[in-house]
Structures are given as C-alpha cells and as structure tokens.
C-alpha cells in the first residue's frame, strides 16, 4: 500500500535510530517500516528494550537529541516527511494532528497546572476556539472519557485524581484537536486490571465514533487480543512479524512470537506447562549482522547467524522476518 492510497495515513520506511552513549552506540531501531491505515488499531508488542517507544517517539522527534540520532528513514504523513519537517510545522502536528499518550501520566501532566488549563492549551494553540469555547470543549472531552462531574474537575490538579482518572485526562488531551492518529505508549500498564478494562472500553468506543487511527504500544498480549486490528511484533529494534490480529494468534510465524505465546499462562485454561524461551534478549550495542533471535531460537541454522532476515509476506497481510519456514519445517527458499 502506498501513501497515495487514501486508506494509508502514515507510511514509515527504513527508520533507524541510534543513541550515542559512553558505553557505545545503542542501535535502538534498525530499519523499521510499516503502514498505518485510517481508523485501524495497530498494536506494537515486544519485550522491554526492543525499540517500541523509540520507534514511535522518533516519528515526532520526541527522543532526546543528543544522545539520540535519527540515522535514516522516512515517515510520510499528509504528503510530508515528518522526519524532515521544520520545527514549527512539527509542533503543529504534535498535539494537533497526532496525539501522544505516555505510559506514566504523572510525568507528562504538569503538576502545577489545573486539568482544565492542560486540556484547553492545545485547543487554543491548534484550533480557532476562544477561551470559553475551549473550556466548553474541554468539559465535553472529559465527559467523553468518562470522568464524572467534568465541569468541576477542570479546576482539579493532577495529584487530586486517581491513576485511572489521570490516564483518562491524558486521553482527553490527546483527543482534544480531533487528531488523525493517536499514539499510546503502554497507556494501561501502570493501571489495575479493573481500571485497565475501563480505559480499553473507552478507547474502543472512541475509535468507533471518531474513526481515529491508533497505535497502541504494549507488552500485554491479552490486551492486544481484545483490542487490535493488526499487530507488529518487535525484537532487537526490528519488526519480526506483522499480521492481522487473528492470524497472529492462530498461526504465529516467527519463532519469537511462537515462543512468546507459548510462554503465557491463560486465565481460561488450566495447568499446561509453561514453555519458556531460553536465554536473554540481545545486546543493542552492535549493528545487527544476523537474526537477533538466533541465539535463543529452536530452529536456528547457519544462515541465521550470518545474515539479517528481511520481513517478507508469507500470507496475505502476514509477514515474518525469519529464514525458517515454520509451516513446512525447512529452511525458507
């Protein structure tokens, strides 16, 4: 699918991000390409350090530079490359056409400003609304994300709200300017399951009503199953598998995804033995020159240790970056 296709709202290609640290260069993102379609919910999963956050933050240049550096790639949004936009233009996109929800609302909400001030700010910046109009809209937004007594809450400070309510405020802020894309970085990880279920419900509902495309970063494969349309699986700074949600769970193609799914206990099934993936996640200091999963992979053979596998389409819409053909149990042609 190309950017000219009306369905694609974002097209990322060959994204590479490094961090130059005292211990060496961290190869955080090593050539990531994906499309985002209008109105879809795209989940990004993978273990800690696999590059999920850095990938998405690079798109809006939210990583600290230095030590960070976007080494290559393009990110086409509304006929422009986000990675080349001048700073003023980029500011308009951030919080305007693309909303970002961070994992920990306490670090991204300003503790000394009222909730109302923080929601109206982007509205005044990015829309034609005047002060009163912005206030009205802010009340509407809080109401929409299920905060009771919204009007009174505008005067509250972040510490006066519970964790779940703060996360809802973050969603309201991200939604403020009716963005085309919302990027949510582990928005429910710090929350209890009963509150997580509330938030997931709100996002599902909003997406249906507003047709916003959502990128949802998480490590929780349970949340993904109930929420996503498509899934990207990251490992070692690369996408190793991409699939419609049902295909991913029914027939995972990459050995890492297979291992991950097998290692999960299930609430609705008892007592199977957990199959663990042996070994440790890869070091990110070296430029990958092999499959990063090879040292832990039950199928690895010579080629896996000397070449980086490309992400190739195995079935319609289902891609995997692996030299092993899991279905026929032989090396891929």
């Amino acid at each position, binding site marked *: 699918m190309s950017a000219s296709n009306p369905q694609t709202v974002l097209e990322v290609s060959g994204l590479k991000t490094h961090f130059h640290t005292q211990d060496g260069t961290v190869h955080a993102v090593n050539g990531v390409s994906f499309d985002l379609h209008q109105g879809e919910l795209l989940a990004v999963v993978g273990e*800690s350090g696999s590059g999920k956050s850095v990938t998405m933050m690079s798109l809006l240049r939210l990583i600290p530079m230095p030590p960070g550096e976007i080494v290559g790639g393009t990110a086409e949004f509304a006929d422009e490359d986000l990675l080349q936009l001048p700073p003023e233009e980029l500011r308009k996109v951030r919080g305007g056409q693309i909303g970002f929800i961070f994992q920990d609302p306490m670090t991204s909400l300003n503790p000394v400003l009222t909730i109302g001030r923080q929601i109206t700010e982007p509205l005044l910046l990015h829309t034609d609304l005047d002060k009163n109009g912005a206030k009205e809209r802010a009340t509407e937004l809080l109401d929409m994300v299920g905060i009771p007594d919204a009007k009174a809450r505008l005067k509250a400070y972040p510490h006066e709200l519970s964790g779940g*309510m703060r996360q809802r405020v973050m969603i309201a802020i991200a939604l403020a300017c009716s963005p085309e894309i919302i990027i949510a970085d582990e928005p429910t990880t710090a929350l209890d399951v009963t509150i997580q*279920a509330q938030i997931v419900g709100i996002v599902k509902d909003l997406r249906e009503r507003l047709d916003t495309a959502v990128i949802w970063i998480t490590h929780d494969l349970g949340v993904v*199953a109930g929420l996503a349309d498509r899934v990207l699986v990251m490992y070692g700074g690369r996408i190793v598998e991409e699939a419609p949600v049902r295909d991913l*769970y029914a027939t995972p193609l990459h050995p890492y995804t297979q291992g991950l799914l097998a290692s999960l206990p299930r609430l609705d099934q008892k007592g199977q033995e*957990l199959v663990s993936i042996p070994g440790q996640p890869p070091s990110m200091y070296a430029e990958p020159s092999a499959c990063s999963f090879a040292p832990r992979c039950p199928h690895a053979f010579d080629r896996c240790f000397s070449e980086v596998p490309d992400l190739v389409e195995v079935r319609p819409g289902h891609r995997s970056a692996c030299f092993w053909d899991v279905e026929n149990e032989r090396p891929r042609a």
Partner: protein
Amino acid sequence: MTDLTETPASRTDTEVIVSVRNLKKHFPIMGGLFRRQVSAVRAVDGVSFDIHRGETLGLVGESGCGKSTTGRVLLQLDDATSGSVFFEDQDLTTLSTGAMRRVRPRAQMIFQDPHASLNPRMTVASIIGEPLREHTKMGPVERRDRIDELLSIVGLDPSHANRYPHEFSGGQRQRIGIARAIALNPDFIVCDEPIAALDVSIQAQVVNLLEELQESLGLTYLFISHDLSMVRHIADRVAVMYLGHIVELTDVESLYDNPKHPYTEALLSAVPVPDPRAEDIRKRVILEGDLPSPSNPPPGCVFNTRCPIAEQRCSSEVPEWREIRPAHWVACHFAE
C-alpha cells in the same frame, strides 16, 4: 495451637504450616501541630487463613489492597497491629527477638524487584553467603561449596559467583534472590510478585524454576501476584484481597470456574485473554469508579461502593466470612 474447628482447613486432612487469625496491620497517619496520629491506613484489616504444607497459596488483588503488607507481617518483617500468625505451633507475633531469629531461616521471602533487593556493592557469592554466615556454623570452604551448589540449583554458572548484580539480567538477578531465599533450606517462602519486573519471555523461566524447587525441596509458597493468569497456573488455592480484607478463598478450579464473590467475578472478567476469538465472546463486568482509600474504607461491606449487586444492607452490615461449601470461603451477604 489454634482452634482448628473454625479454620479454613478444618475439613481437609492436610497439615497446616501457617495459620493466620484476624490479622491487622494499620499504619498511623501523623498530622496536626504536634504530629500526633490523626488516622490510620488500614492496610490489612482482619484476615484469617491457613496455608497447607507443600501447597502454593496465591494471594491476588489490585494495587494497594494489602498483599505485600500481609506477606511482610507474616514473616514479621513488620509488626502486626493485632491478631496472630502461627508458624507450626508458635505464634510469631509473641516471640522474642532471639526466638524469632531461630525461626527466620525456615521462613524466607523473595522480593518483587530484583534490582532493588540485591546490594549492588556485594558480589553474588557474598549475597548468597550472607544468610549462611549469619545462621550456620559453616567454614569458608563449606560455605563456598554450598554457594556453588545453590547457583547450579537456580541455573546460574558457579564461575560467575564473584560478579556483581548489575552484570546480570533481570531474570538472572531474580535467580540470585531465589538462591539466597533457599540457602538455609526453608520450609516456607513468601514470593512477593517474583516475576512482575521481568519480561514476558523470562517470566516462564522463573516460574518453572520455582515449581521445580517446590517439588525437589518440598517448599510451601505464599505467591503474591496481580497476574491472575499466572496464579491460575502456579497456585493450588487462591485468596482474593480487596481493601485490606480477604473476600474469597478456595481451590484454583472453584475460584476461576465458579467465583462466588462479585469482586472476584469482576476481577476475573477484566483480565484479558491472549486469544482474539475468546476475547470476542467474553462477557465483562466493568466496575464503576475507583478503589476507595484504605484510610477511610466504606462502612459495611468494603466492596459496596463498586459492587454491581449491592443492596441496602451492604452499606451497613459487614458480611460474615463464611464457608459456603467445604473449603470455599466467601465474605458476601448473597454468596451461596
């Protein structure tokens, strides 16, 4: 010994190793001009349960409900406000420091955060050797052998004994914590969220290790976790906590397949299942509102402010902790 006629274990013939009765732990909140106690966080507010020898009792519930505090008071790392904790036939809450010191080797703890619980300036050998130095008469050579043995038991390379914690990954650090906890051949271990800080692909490694050790060393676990899927996998029985109270306690199958407390039901229904087909057909009980403050718990049943089936009496009458079927305990007026 406790009066067994009123304990959860009364109808089973399993030996009870830990028996908790009406345990409370309140943390004072100081305030005012003279910094006097103005109120208290009722972290644990009257819990009673038994742990059987050789079993894994899961303790689940949402953040702040009092799980860690229960575990810490059980091991006397915090003093109880009231109530008793029997370990075999001794009430630990009444023991002198010296007597408690003799019990300590037999009851150990594994902590949630493998980064914070290991001293970064000590080598792995000295971390694991510490309880051996403190509680045994082993000489240096014997101790060294035991450390090597412990490292191999938990799947670490004994030649790494002189390394420091930061040279290990999260999963490996948790193994170091496990080696330290089993060093003195304990009978009972409180595992406080032992896998919460680990990557999904590493969690299974550590859980499998805990299960193997339980089998080979005959350990009894209190497994504290908010991961209800993992608890279903590892536990024999499960206790569900809400706001300082245990609201339901029974065997794994009954709890997950046939929960009787409305909170247990809501909690289970909120847990996502990693299977899109199952997710599509699941029914959810979405709880309204947030957790009340433990310093000002609601009167009557503590769950009444969020309970979907609450009636008038729930906000005035505290539900009795009842055994509705053999070995199935619930605190709800309407459970049957």
